[in-house]
């Protein structure tokens, strides 16, 4: 049997992975075996965090709405606001309410007073 070298096959495969990890810090963008592991970890993170992103932003919006609503009157809160929203069948979601809270706080107060019945 003649000797067969593998040639450039492995190198081509690893170059693609190296390109993926080209912006990583330190050895994670330089050493091949580390690069392979870090690519797997980063893809796992992005897969998991795509769902976490939705959760995290909703939590952030709720915190922000709560902050503004509690500043309005003494015994009002996010929970009461949402209860009133559902009672009056208002379709504003938390993202939009948070945007209104940042940009036009008085508008949010008007909405909450209106649905407070």
């Amino acid at each position, binding site marked *: 049997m003649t000797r067969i070298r593998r040639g450039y096959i492995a190198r081509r495969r690893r170059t693609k992975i190296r390109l993926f990890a080209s912006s990583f810090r330190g050895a994670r963008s330089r050493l091949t075996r580390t690069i392979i592991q870090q690519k797997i970890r980063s893809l796992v993170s992005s897969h998991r965090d795509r769902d976490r992103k939705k959760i995290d932003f909703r939590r*952030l*919006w709720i*915190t*922000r*709405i*709560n*902050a*503004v609503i*509690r*500043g*309005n*009157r*003494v015994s009002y809160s996010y929970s009461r606001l949402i209860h009133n929203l559902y009672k009056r069948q208002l379709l504003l979601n938390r*993202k939009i309410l*948070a*945007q209104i*809270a*940042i*940009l036009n*706080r*008085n508008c949010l*107060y*008007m909405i909450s*007073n209106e649905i407070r019945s």
Partner: protein
Amino acid sequence: MSQQIARTRLAYARTWHHLSFATDPRPLGRIASSIALHLMGKHKPIYDPSTDCGDYVIATSCADINTTGKKRYQKLYYTHSTRPGSLKSMSMDNMFKKWGGGEVLKKAVRGMLPKNRLRDKRLARLKVFEGEDHPYRKNVVKIDGKTVNNDRIGHIGETLDAVLQMKNELPPEKVGVAQAST
């Protein structure tokens, strides 16, 4: 996204709130909870846990802190120096005598802040004084001679609006909490 809106220096500027225990009858824990919220910045619509968007709080007349029940004489504060047998306890009354009401307030607020790397930085923004005098009078914003922040930390939502109006960033209509429309 909402992340890029209101990313202005004015929105993230730290405001100074003043609170006097001489005029505020609420007990220690309830006020401490409110202070912690303001130190975290959770009263702001731009709150983000990754940024430290908290404000300063000046607490004066800490010698007059009100506690209910017999807490003043029965609540114990423990210290331990990691040496076996060095557990020491001090009642709240003795804490007042030795360290002052400011320390008692700081201990209370410290337990109410999230236990992360920002905790000490946020606690450092709480300025405590035993009497009524404090060197930060110029930092507390006054508009038309009236202090923007109430003595009862609670309705601070109007602070940012008032400051923005002062800087003519909001239309000059009547800003502030819509409490009149009950």
